[in-house]
């Protein structure tokens, strides 16, 4: 049958099982949009390509499967870059397809020409410039294989318009790209790991996003209980353990619990799984867990020894490795060590005013929100104070229920990712917790939300500041505030109504939590603007560059919330 490059691309995506695409059309990619007629693929028209990138990320983060975003050449492609770089740092499988000017015009500074291949090269797992239909047939399945295999990540495919318009007879289609299995660790390595853990007196699990990526959350829970080891999680691993699991010590690092960070210094063996010793987690790395013998399991061999040398370093898939480990590891009990963990956790709770006194204190607000949501609700955030309050206070208990921009720290992630999550997990309640700074970075996607009428609630924690910047200026720059306060106030509820959505502003003087409950009880999308105190700080906090045990738990009396 006679095909064009565009209909080949469509067919390859259909064969790949892709049923939803997010993007924005434009000159160079018009042949593909024409080819979408008659396809079962649903196209989501976002209002900015970055929104399309994060929408696809939301789908990928809830499903674990590669999702696709599309953009035209030039500004369409450059607008995708932030979402691609974000997927790279959080190891999210994403296939970003961009159109390019016709090959005859490449290198001539043609209209909407930009070197997309060069721009995506350092921020993707791999990237392609497709030069012919033959290459297209090979590249699209390979892009999915690369995005999903090993350590997942984004793959960019740039396709010149003449390739989309070229014609060819296709009699045999290539097989869809599938995830390749990761080579298993040697049995001797598993034995050595089992021996190390069996000999530990004070073992501790340090769980990273790779545990969720590998679908190994249940196994990590089983391991913690099997060897009676407390577990700490990174931001990316929240939800791996149940919030009320006595072995769950919560998040480590810059905004982790002080008890959690102190306990890590007392461990004799730390088993890091799918974690990359990121600076926000370890603090000053030379002083990170100085007493501990480190075992490190990661699917990416380049992570082993990158930041911190491990006594035992294993390259492998977390699910496969933990399954084998559990078979040959005897059960253990460490009552004194578990008691010490409980003691430290109790000694350093999250400090916040009583809910009756200050119901809209962020910690109280997030806990109230959790009580109002079903257990399987998905929470996305933007980046800043609200993100850390959610990480600290929301009782995440299932993997893939907390979607956040961890590595790149991209403000503007939350709303489009929430829309993608609602598309990827139909029927579930999705809440985007944002701030008044972050929400403005992709607020145009409220229009996409209005188009789709999905059950997404957007909560804007509004302190009229770039709060985390303000906090750092208060704590570390002598209260010399600079460009962290917004001079005009924005009526976010009115903006939401302008997009055709429900918009609510909570009145702090009139049962705000009751108002929150009724706003969330009604079906469909809603934006809820929540005034919070502008001087509220995220605590505890490890000063940037300091060791984790030097965490600050209170600011000076003038601003402390005791």
């Amino acid at each position, binding site marked *: 049958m006679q095909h064009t490059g565009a209909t080949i691309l469509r067919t390859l995506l259909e064969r790949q099982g892709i049923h939803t695409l997010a993007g924005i059309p434009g000159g160079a990619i018009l042949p593909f949009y024409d080819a979408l007629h008659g396809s079962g693929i649903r196209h989501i028209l976002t209002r900015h390509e970055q929104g399309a990138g994060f929408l696809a990320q939301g789908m990928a983060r809830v499903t674990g499967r590669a999702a696709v975003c599309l953009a035209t050449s030039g500004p369409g492609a450059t607008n995708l870059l932030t979402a691609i770089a974000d997927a790279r740092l959080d190891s999210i499988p994403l296939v970003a397809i961009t159109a390019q000017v016709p090959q005859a015009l490449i290198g001539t500074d043609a209209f909407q020409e930009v070197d997309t291949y060069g721009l995506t090269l350092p921020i993707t797992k791999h990237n392609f*410039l497709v030069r012919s239909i033959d290459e297209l047939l090979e590249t699209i399945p390979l892009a999915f294989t*690369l995005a999903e295999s090993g350590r997942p990540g984004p793959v960019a495919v740039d396709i010149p318009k003449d390739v989309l318009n070229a014609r060819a007879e296709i009699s045999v289609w290539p097989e869809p790209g599938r995830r390749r299995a990761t080579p298993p660790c040697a049995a001797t390595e598993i034995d050595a790991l089992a021996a190390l853990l069996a000999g530990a007196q004070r073992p501790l699990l340090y769980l990273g996003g790779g545990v969720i990526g590998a679908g190994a959350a249940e196994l990590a829970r089983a391991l913690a209980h099997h060897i009676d080891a407390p577990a700490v999680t990174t931001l990316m691993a929240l939800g791996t353990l149940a919030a009320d699991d006595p072995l769950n010590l919560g998040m480590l690092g810059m905004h982790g619990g002080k008890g959690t960070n102190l306990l890590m210094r007392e461990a004799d063996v730390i088993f890091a799984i799918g974690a990359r010793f990121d600076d926000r987690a370890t603090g000053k790395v030379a002083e990170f867990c100085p007493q501990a013998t480190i075992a490190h399991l990661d699917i990416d061999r380049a992570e082993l020894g990158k930041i911190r040398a491990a006594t035992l370093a294993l390259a492998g898939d977390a699910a496969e490795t933990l399954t084998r480990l559990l078979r040959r590891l005897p059960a253990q009990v460490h009552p004194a060590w578990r008691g010490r963990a409980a003691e430290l956790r109790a000694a350093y709770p999250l400090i916040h005013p009583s809910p009756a006194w200050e119901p809209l204190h962020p910690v109280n607000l997030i806990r109230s929100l959790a009580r109002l949501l079903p257990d399987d609700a998905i929470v996305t955030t933007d980046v800043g104070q609200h993100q850390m309050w959610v990480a600290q206070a929301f009782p995440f208990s299932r993997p893939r229920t907390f979607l956040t921009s961890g590595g790149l720290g991209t403000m503007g992630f939350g709303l489009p990712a929430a829309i993608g999550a609602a598309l990827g997990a139909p029927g579930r309640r999705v809440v985007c917790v944002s701030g008044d700074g972050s929400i403005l970075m992709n607020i145009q996607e409220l229009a996409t939300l209005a188009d789709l009428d999905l059950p997404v609630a957007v909560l804007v924690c509004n302190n009229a500041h770039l709060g985390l910047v303000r906090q750092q200026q208060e704590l570390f720059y002598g209260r010399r505030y600079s460009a962290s306060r917004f001079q005009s106030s924005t009526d976010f509820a009115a903006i939401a109504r302008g997009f055709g959505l429900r918009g609510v502003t909570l009145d702090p003087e009139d049962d705000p939590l009751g108002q929150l409950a009724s706003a969330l009880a009604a079906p469909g999308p809603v934006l809820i603007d929540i005034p919070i105190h502008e001087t509220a700080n995220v605590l505890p906090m490890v000063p940037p560059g300091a060791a984790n045990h030097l965490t600050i738990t209170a600011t000076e009396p003038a601003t402390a919330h005791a």
Partner: protein
Amino acid sequence: MPDTTQPATTVLELRVRNHPGAMSHITGLFARRAFNLEAIVCVPEADHATSRMLLLVANDPKLEQMQRQLEKLHDVLEVRHRGDIGAGYFEALRW
């Protein structure tokens, strides 16, 4: 005090897919991971589908990390540490 027993540079040999982006992927990796790349020789193999590259790089503790990062590149098919080729090999290519 510099370690006189270890030469300051060493050589990596790569076998790579021969296409226009492969060189950018490799040189870009060195630049963004802040690892010195002092010289490159690249020659296509007989079939022109693959090329062989010799890289003169700093012989420091990050070398193993760089080898692992290189191995992750889709276009890099093989990485070998060639301690047997000295920096003199590159000196001889000066014109």
